[in-house]
């Protein structure tokens, strides 16, 4: 600053007499202004802020309040107000201190004084309403709050705030009234819908609640699921199913029904387990939207995700029937075929899918169909050669341009190579895939496959590096858990000099991949017997347990998990093994006591862990004589 000032002076000297005079005037003004400012009370206050007694008292009062010493806080605030009656901070501090100390009577006196002086102090009104509400004077509270709203009638937040306060004090009716009033005043029919659903549900006014759910669903299409969920909650809370059905019928049959309203009604019909009514609603919605079956696809998807597979398949096929030759129809046929393996017909699924692919060779849906077919060949049919052939088809024609499908096909290709024991091909394909620009999930999976192949090839160091890269790249992706467990086994085996058990573990994996379960079992048993304390042992046994379960040998699985329980100490393995045992025993039927013992062991023998809650719930259900679900 000094140099700048000097620079100005120097320029001034070089300049004309007038400019020198101008500079002098500016400087004089600056000096005068600075002097005046420096001597003003404002500056003085700033500089002596630290020793301002009021500030000190305010700070002390706040601290006292935080530390729970309300008496001291009240004393300090009062002393400030005696000195400075207009000190706002002290006033509201005192209000807070009174309300914290539960001195609502004193608070009311204070607020009355305030309102006498400032009749339009909305904040004071809100506080006064709260004080009355705390004292149980809900009528008075509501009146005061209405007055507070009247101070800002056009502000939507004002209704929101008061409504929330009334909900908090369980003044649900009043709250609903406030929200409705707000909706009317503001003139937006969708406003406060979610809050009203809450209020009406608590009040047991389910009809109104359902109506508000409809409002919400129509207002925001994305909230159909939320609204449906609310209906389920109402039913849980005791809403009469029949009435609910009637109200939803009204919605569905209303000539003014919107597609969103119909979709909501359809969803609720599904909750009410009335798929036909649901279908009707969705069909009508479909007609109204004119989007070529999209609403029907939604219906089918809901059915599928809800576990109604056959109905879902029918619904998908209905889409194809109603809108033939459309993309939606092709997609629906793919989805319909995808359901077949779960219904026990994977070959039928492959045939249907290939038919779709042949019918729509240039469409994306055709590619999706081939991909789904290849997946079924790998996962359900364990036919890697066939899968490789199907994947090869993906690279023909326009499908090759669909990167996502091609990348998904590449992942299946790797799986197929692994099943065929062609580790080098699998590694090379994964590496090749990583050279392309892919979605994160595809990338993560390819990276995992790299590490996994290295593990199978017994290159421990490389495997750890590749798996680590995968985990660090996207820790939220699939296979990360598996990668981490594998890394831990490899690292600990290396550290503990347990190469042999690690090799056996890799061999077991290879055998399992190629479908040679006997060899896999042998290798795992070798580990369990010869390398009992090795890091690979618990993982190997858990793998064996899973294999037995897959093979449909519950007894075998129970035995394996029992070995785990006997031989292992780690909480995770013990908890999972006991959980699996409990689940198998419970599913077996007639062995609920054994299952209960297993679940109880998770709770009693192990410290609180990630399966404790689940074990407790299952235990309760079994003890109540119910069956396990989910």
């Amino acid at each position, binding site marked *: 600053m000094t140099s700048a000032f000097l620079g100005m002076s120097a320029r001034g000297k070089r300049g004309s007499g007038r400019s020198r005079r101008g500079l002098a005037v500016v400087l004089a003004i600056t000096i005068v202004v600075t002097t005046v400012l420096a001597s003003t009370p404002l500056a003085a206050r700033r500089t002596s802020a630290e020793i301002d007694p009021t500030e000190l008292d305010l700070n002390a009062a706040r601290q006292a309040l935080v*530390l729970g010493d309300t008496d001291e806080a009240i004393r300090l605030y009062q002393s400030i107000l005696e000195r400075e009656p207009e000190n706002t901070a002290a006033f509201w501090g005192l209000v807070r201190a009174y309300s914290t100390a539960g001195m609502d009577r004193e608070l009311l006196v204070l607020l009355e004084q305030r309102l006498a002086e400032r009749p339009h102090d909305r904040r004071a009104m809100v506080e006064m309403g709260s004080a009355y509400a705390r004292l149980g004077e809900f009528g008075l509270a509501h009146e005061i709050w209405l007055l507070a709203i009247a101070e800002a009638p056009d502000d939507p937040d004002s209704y929101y*705030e008061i409504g929330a306060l009334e909900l908090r004090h369980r003044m649900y009716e009043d709250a609903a009234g406030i929200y409705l009033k707000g909706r009317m005043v503001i003139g937006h029919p969708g406003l406060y819908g979610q809050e009203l659903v809450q209020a009406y549900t608590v009040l047991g006014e389910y009809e109104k609640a359902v109506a508000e759910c409809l409002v919400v669903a129509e207002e925001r299409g994305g909230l159909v*699921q939320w609204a449906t969920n609310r209906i389920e909650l109402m039913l849980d809370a005791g809403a009469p199913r029949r009435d609910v059905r009637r109200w939803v019928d009204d919605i569905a049959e209303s000539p003014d029904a919107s597609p969103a309203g119909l979709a909501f009604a359809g969803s609720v019909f*599904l909750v009410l387990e009335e798929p036909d009514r649901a279908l009707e609603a969705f069909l009508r919605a479909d007609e109204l939207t004119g989007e070529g079956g999209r609403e029907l696809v939604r219906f089918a998807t809901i059915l599928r995700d809800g576990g109604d597979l056959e109905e879902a398949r029918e619904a998908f096929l209905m889409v194809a029937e109603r809108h033939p030759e459309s993309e939606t129809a092709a997609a629906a046929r793919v989805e319909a075929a995808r359901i077949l393996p779960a219904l026990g017909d994977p070959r039928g699924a492959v045939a249907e899918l290939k038919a779709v692919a042949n019918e729509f060779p240039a469409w994306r849906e055709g590619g999706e169909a081939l991909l789904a077919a290849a997946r079924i060949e790998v996962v359900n049919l364990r036919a890697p050669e066939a899968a490789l052939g199907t994947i090869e088809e993906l690279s023909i024609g326009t499908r090759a341009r669909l990167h996502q499908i091609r990348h998904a096909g590449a992942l299946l290709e790797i799986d197929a190579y692994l099943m065929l024991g062609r580790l080098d091909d699998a590694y090379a394909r994964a590496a090749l895939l990583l050279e392309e620009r892919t979605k994160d999930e595809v990338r993560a999976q390819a990276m995992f496959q790299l590490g996994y192949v290295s593990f199978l090839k017994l290159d421990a160091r490389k495997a750890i590096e590749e798996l680590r890269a995968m985990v660090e790249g996207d820790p939220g992706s699939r296979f990360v858990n598996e990668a*981490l467990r594998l890394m831990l086994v490899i690292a600990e085996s290396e550290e503990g000099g347990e190469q042999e058990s690690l090799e056996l573990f890799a061999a077991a994996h290879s055998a399992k991949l190629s479908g040679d379960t006997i060899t896999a079992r042998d290798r795992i048993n070798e580990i369990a017997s010869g390398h009992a304390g090795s890091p690979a042992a618990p993982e190997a046994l858990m793998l064996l347990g899973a294999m037995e379960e897959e093979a449909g040998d519950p007894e075998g699985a129970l035995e394996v998990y029992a070995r785990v329980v006997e031989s292992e100490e780690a909480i995770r*393995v013990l908890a999972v093994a006991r959980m699996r045992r409990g689940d198998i025993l419970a599913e077996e039927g007639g062995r609920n006591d054994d299952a209960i013992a297993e679940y109880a062991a998770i709770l009693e023998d192990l*410290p609180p862990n*990630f*399966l404790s809650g689940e074990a407790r719930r299952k235990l309760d259900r079994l003890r109540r004589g119910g069956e396990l679900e989910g």
Partner: protein
Amino acid sequence: MTQAERGHHELMRRIASAGRRWRRRAAAHGLLRVLTPAIAAVVLYLALDALFVLPRGVRIVWLTGTAMFLLAGLAVLVVRPLMRKLDPVGIAARIEAEHPELGERLEASAELWEKRGRGKHGYSVELIDALIEKTVADAAGIDFGAVRGTARARRWALALGIVVVGALGLAGLGSRLGPALGRLARPFAVVETQAVTITVEPGDTTLLSGDDLIITATVTGPSGDGAVLTYEYEGEIPRERAMTSDVTGERTAVPDPSSESAHRATLGDVRTDLRYSVSVGETESPTYTATVIERPFVTGLRLDYEFPAYSGLLARTVDENNGDVTALTGTRIGLTLTASKPLESARLVFESGEPLPLEREGASVFRGGMLVVESATYSIEITDTDGLSNGDPATYSIVAVRDEYPLVRIVEPGEDREVPRDMSFPLVISALDDYGVSDLTIRYSIEGLATEGVLPLANLGRRGERELVKEAVWDLSETGILPGAVLVYFAEVTDNDRVSGPKISRSESYLIRFPSMAELYSEVSGDQDEMVDDLEELVDEQEDLREEFEEIQEELRSDPSVDWQKEEEIEAALERQEELAEEVGEMADKMSELTDKMSESDRVTLETLEKTEEITKLLDEVATEEMRELIEQIREAMEQISPEQVSQAMEQMEITQDDYLRRLEQTLNLLKRVKAEQDLADIANRAEDLAERQERLAEEAGQSPGGQQCERMSEEQAELSKEAEQLREDLEKAIEEMSQVDRQTAEQMQEAAEEMDMSGMLEKMEQARSSFMEKKPGEAGPMCQSASNDLLTLFTSLSSCQGGMACSLEQRDREATLRAIDELLGVSSEQEKVVDAVEDRARIPRSEIVELVAKETDLAESMSAIAERMFVVSKESFVIDPSVYRAFGIVEMFMIRAAAQIADGGASAGRREAREALGRVNGLIVSLLTANQSNSPSSGGSSMQQLMQQLQQMAEQQSQLNDSTEELRQRLEEMGMNPQLQRQLAEMKGQQQRILEEARRLAEEFGNRDEILGRLDDTVEQIENTLAEMERTGASQETIDRQRRILSRLLDAQRSLRRRDYTRERRSRSGDAYARTAPRALGDDVTRATQELREDLLRAMQRDYPSEYRELIRAYFEGLSADMLSDEPAPGRRGEVAP
């Protein structure tokens, strides 16, 4: 009268008037023409006469001619024009010539008027009248008298002006003008002339070379000129010079003919013969000769320097014809002079004192000698055979260069220090002198004692080195310093000056303090206690505050709106949080100071220091930037009245606070742990220290000391007993503290304490003291030895407690981390299931939603449980970074959010949160894996760690062997030697041999490491001696004692490893507590700078600078030094600068 007549009359009048004017003008012009030459002739005459005095004939002719010309000119050119008659026609013609516009009408008018009406041929009257009228009309306005051509008149006027100026110029003739005027007035008078005589002094003369020759001339008779000196140096051309008046000093002018005038001229610095004469006008004096003669002078001067022998300087000769001498005091100077001519005598004349005659060496060569004692001046006086001396001889200086005081500095340590554990005090002394150091010693005294000790460091004799750096290790045990005492020491250096006597200089004084172990222990321990108390308070406050935030958050969950009241509440809590953060920051500073203090102590282990630094780091990290940002975020959200943002920020705040609290708690626990460890280490050290001192006393007791020594030993024993009692008390406290952090180690310590009690060590020490008092050292000796052994046993036990504690902690940390990783993998696996369940699902059945929400809530709880379990272990650990717990909190937060979202809006709502939770939990596993890997024993570890482990192992083996030997000795005493015991002894020898081999291997592999230098070799030697002892005496007490020493050595080596490689730069100690008031105090900086200057000076003086520069160099350095001292405003705390 007609108009024409009137016109004619007018014209005539005007013409006549013009004629008169012309006549006057012509006369005036004529006068100019006459007067100008006449005056010019007179002026010329005067000038010539004044200058040359014109002969009378010339004067007469000139003046006569001039007068005639004047008369004739006046008649012709003045009188005649005036007398001339006026002719109107002629005048008219002239007027017309001046005014051509008149044509000839004026002349015609004048002429024709006369003829008007007269001619027969008709000069018409009318015509003439008309002419006249016309002429009158034309001439109206014309001045007939005006003359256009006046150029000639002006020229004459100009000539007259020049002449007048010339006349005025005659004044320049000065005095000559008067006689000339006189002669003008009397032109016929005759001027007479007189003869001029010149008398010259000194005439022919002789003078000394270089003297001035003053010549005077007295002139009588008239003369027009001044006196002129003409002189001619031998072999040169003659020259002239005007002489000056002897009276006025001015150049002589024309003399008054009647008077006599004196003239003078001076020829300066005459060095060769010359001839001269004086002339005045035409008169010239005779020519005289001045002959020059010369004084004797010194043409050559040689100085032979012979320096004092001790200086080591070589003799030298300076043959530069310069008598100035600069030499070291005591130097003998030989002086040889050569004169310009044969001399009668020569001598040295000093400024003060007797002259020193020189001895003749030849006709013109003389020689003498002198001793340089002090600075002085002298000159050389010589006299030639003519009796002429060397006039004003040159003065020479003698500068006696003094031998500087030597300089000595204690380079290392160069500050106050404490007594090292091994009593070996390394010293580096630097001494410097211009001609050599002969002696270097350390002088010391113990405060409170009158006697002074001397530690000789170097005795170099007469030809000592000029610069000496002496490194030495001072065995302080020889000084007799006792714990709690202070030793003052300085270095003393003596130079080799044999001329003026050896000079002694001293370095600054420094202190060596021998603090008692208990003192150091209580100092650090006290600070640590204070820190622990402060931190406990902070933790409590933070817990309260966290609860406060939880309540607020709870309120916000049930009612997200932020009213003013809530705002106030939040603001107050935020302010409190800020204050707490500040307090934590202050505590971190305190911790840092404590670490520094500890690092300055030689008794703190490297591990402890590292841990203390780690704690400081933790405290620094506690006050996270994130917390500050969150506080700001909450404030901003409140300002923007955004309940959602406030709620989110508060949620984050809760996690951050958890993390904060965990960090604080961890710091507190670690501090407690470090303190307990430090206490343990300290007591072990003190036990070892006491054991060593007790053993020394035992050795002294074995040397049959005299009565006085017994008294001293009794006092020392009393001191040892006191310290041992204190040690026992402190051990009890340390056990109590340790029991709070490590029960197992506390139990081991308790066992060691009980063993100590059972050994009756304190009683033995008391007995020894009594025996010393009674002057029975023979009885005291075994007691001392036994007490020493007991102390060594205590030390051994406590050291193994230390080692075990560290190992168990590391193992526990690692296991806890691995357990947490394993459980987190379970969580991750379950979370994956949740993600799979909610992804891409259009609808999830109600029952499944309930299950998912429950699962997510379970997982969130299990995160908390895992964190809690890990924290229980890691809060005493340095391995797990507390920031990990924050990651736990964040995972938990996302899981709770996911659960809430799924419960509220179905699967689609919680998808993002569930996936985020999965990513975070996996990330957490990775970071824990990384941390665990870097701490795992197989992750490399340093070679030093390996060495530590091997030493630990060896120490354990030796300890077991020691126990076996003791047991064997008892059995031997009970049963005597039998084959079984013999076998046992052989086995034990074998074990000792294996330990020896291992020790040799380690010594070979690691022995050259700085951290352990020498210790392993010593251990090997000890084991070898023990083996020899075993061979000789079997399992004797001697063997047992030796084995204990081996164990002690092994433990010592371990401790060295822990302590010595701590590379942190130690801060210099202030030493204020021990400062003494020094009489000649200087600021440290000034003292140092002055010393450096003196060093520079001494070094500069040692170089081969020309002697004349040496004094300049000295003056330069002394000037600098003086400046520095005068610039120093305040005196320093101590320091003596010699001399």
